[in-house]
C-alpha cells in the first residue's frame, strides 16, 4: 500500500498499542465497520451502476456496461465474458508515487477479474447468446474517487450492488437455415430486460488486518499504515469461501490463520446487508 508519508513513528506506536487493548482512534470495536452509504443507479448511461462510500472515506463508483460480443475461435464456445477494470482516480492518488498507484490499480483489477470471471459468481454460460458465435460481454469499470482505507471490501460491495442493478436486454433467436444457422435480435424494450444471471452468488469481501498480535476489520487510512498484513476473504451467500488473498509485507502466524477464516459478516457490524439475501 502506498503511503503518503504523513504518519510519524509515535503515531504508529500509539495506534498499534491501542489494538492490543481493543481501542481504536474513532471509538469503534475491533470488529465493527464504519457507516456506509450505498447508492444505486447513479450513472444514467450505464446498464447498471452503484456507488459505495464507507465512513466518509473510501468512495467507489462502479458502472456496468453490457454489449454484444463475438466469440472468437479458441475461446470457450459457450460462455459470456466479464471484463474488469479498477482505476484510482488521479485526484485521489496525486500524493502517491506513480508506480504505487499503478501497482494498486493492477492488483485490484486482477482481484476483481478473478472474483467475477474465473469462478462461480456470475453464470457465464447464461451470458452466451449463440454458441461459437455471439455472447454478452459485461464491462465492469470501477473508479476509486476517494481513499480512506478498506478498499477491497468497499469495491466488492459496490460491484455487487452494480450487478444487482444491471439489466441485460432480452434477445430473440431464430433459425435462418436448415443447417442450424441462427440469428438474433436484441429487444430494445427496457421492460423486457433481465437481471444478470447469478448476481446473487457474487461474493462480498471481509478484509482482516493483522497488527500487533490481533486482527480487526475495516481499517481507516491511518490504521492501514500501521498493519503488518491484510487477509481478504470473500464469502458468498452460502458461506463458501470464494477467494482468499493476503496482501501487505508482513506474515500471519499459522495459529491464528484458521480462526481468521471463520470470521463472517455479521449483522451487528452494521455491514452492508442491504443486498444480502
Amino acid at each position, binding site marked *: 500500500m502506498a503511503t503518503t508519508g504523513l504518519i510519524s513513528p509515535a503515531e504508529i506506536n500509539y495506534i498499534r498499542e491501542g489494538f492490543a487493548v481493543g481501542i481504536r482512534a474513532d471509538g469503534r470495536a475491533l470488529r465493527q465497520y464504519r457507516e456506509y452509504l450505498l447508492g444505486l443507479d447513479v450513472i444514467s448511461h450505464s446498464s447498471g451502476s452503484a456507488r459505495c462510500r464507507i465512513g466518509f472515506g473510501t468512495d467507489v463508483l462502479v458502472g456496468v456496461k453490457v454489449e454484444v460480443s463475438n466469440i472468437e475461435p479458441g475461446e470457450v464456445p459457450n460462455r459470456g465474458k466479464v471484463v474488469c477494470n479498477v482505476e484510482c482516480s488521479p485526484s485521489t492518488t496525486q500524493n502517491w508515487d506513480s508506480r504505487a498507484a499503478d501497482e494498486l490499480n493492477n*492488483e485490484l483489477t486482477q482481484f476483481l477479474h478473478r472474483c467475477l470471471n474465473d*469462478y*462461480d459468481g456470475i453464470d457465464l454460460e447464461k451470458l452466451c447468446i449463440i454458441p461459437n458465435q455471439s455472447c454478452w460481454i459485461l464491462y465492469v469499470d470501477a473508479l476509486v474517487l476517494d481513499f480512506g482505507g478498506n478498499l477491497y471490501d468497499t469495491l466488492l460491495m459496490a460491484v455487487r450492488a452494480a450487478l444487482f442493478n444491471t439489466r441485460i436486454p432480452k434477445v430473440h433467436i431464430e433459425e435462418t437455415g436448415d443447417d442450424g444457422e441462427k440469428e438474433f435480435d436484441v429487444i430494445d424494450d427496457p421492460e423486457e430486460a433481465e437481471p444478470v444471471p447469478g448476481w446473487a452468488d457474487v461474493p462480498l469481501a471481509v478484509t482482516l488486518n493483522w497488527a500487533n498480535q490481533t486482527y480487526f476489520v475495516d481499517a481507516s487510512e491511518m490504521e492501514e499504515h500501521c498493519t503488518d*498484513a491484510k487477509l481478504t476473504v470473500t464469502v458468498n451467500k452460502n458461506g*463458501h*469461501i470464494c477467494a482468499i488473498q493476503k496482501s501487505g509485507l508482513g506474515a500471519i502466524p*499459522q495459529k491464528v490463520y484458521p480462526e481468521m*477464516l471463520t470470521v463472517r459478516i455479521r449483522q451487528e457490524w452494521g455491514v452492508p446487508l442491504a443486498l444480502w439475501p
Partner: protein
Amino acid sequence: MDRRRVNGPELSVAPLVATVDAEGAVNFVQETPKQAFTPDTKRQDGRSAGDIRPIYLRAGLVNQASGSAYFEQKNTRVTCGVYGPRQNKKAQFNELARLECEIKFTPSSCEKRRALHRDPEEKELANFIAQALSPAVKLDRYPKSTISVYISVIQCDGWWSAVAAAITCASVALIDAGIDMIDSVVAASTLVANPSTVLMDASQSEEDAHPHIDAGVLLVAELPTFKSITHVVQMGKLDINQTTKATEACLEVCAKIHGVVNHYLRESVIQQAEI
C-alpha cells in the same frame, strides 16, 4: 501482435503418436485425452494425491548476479537472479530496503505462446512474490537500497505450481546472495477438486482436466521455522473445511520442501568451499 519480430504460431498442437499393430501396419493416433482424477486411480504420472514431483535445486548459476538459483520439478523449470542490495535510484530516503520483483514466463513456457512484454498477470504475480518474500528479508538492515529479484519461468507445467516454485527459488537465490534473512520462504500449491480430493502440486494436464467451475486452487507460502504464513491465495469456491484441509496439506508439503531446500543449500555451500 508485434510485427517486427518473427512470431511463432498462436497455438501448439500435440503430435500424433505412431503405433504399430499386430499385422505390422503403422497407425498414427492422437494421444489419450486428459482424464480427471478419481480417488481410486493413480494420477497420470503415477503419483498419489498428496505427492509432489521430485525437486532438483541448485544455487549460484548466474555469474553476473549477486545470488541465483535454479529450481526444477519435472517439467516446471524456474531460474532466479538476485541483484543488490544497491543504492536507490531515487534520492528519496527510505528506512527499509525496497524488494523489487519481476517475473517473466518465457514465450515458449506455456501451451499457449506468451507475449514478450510483461502482461498484467505477471505484474500481479510479481507483487505476490514480493509480498511472500518480504517478511523473511531483514529489510531494515539495508536502508536507502533496492534488492532486485528477477525470475524467469523457463517451462511451466501447472500455473500455480510454477508460482510456488518461483517463490521457493527466489528465496534460495536471496540466501545465495548473502542477504540477511530470518528464515527461508517455501511455497506449495494444491488443486482441490470437488468434493474433497486435494491434489498437491498439480500439473498442467490436471489443471486442464479440472476446469475452474468445480475446483479450487490454493497457494501457501510460509516461514517454516517461524510457523508464519507469508502469502496465501485461493481461487474458486470451497467451503471452510475444504480450505482448512487444503491449507494443512500445503503446510505439510512446505515442511518437506524446506528439508529439500536445506539439503541443497548445504550441498552448494560445500561445493563452493571446495572451489
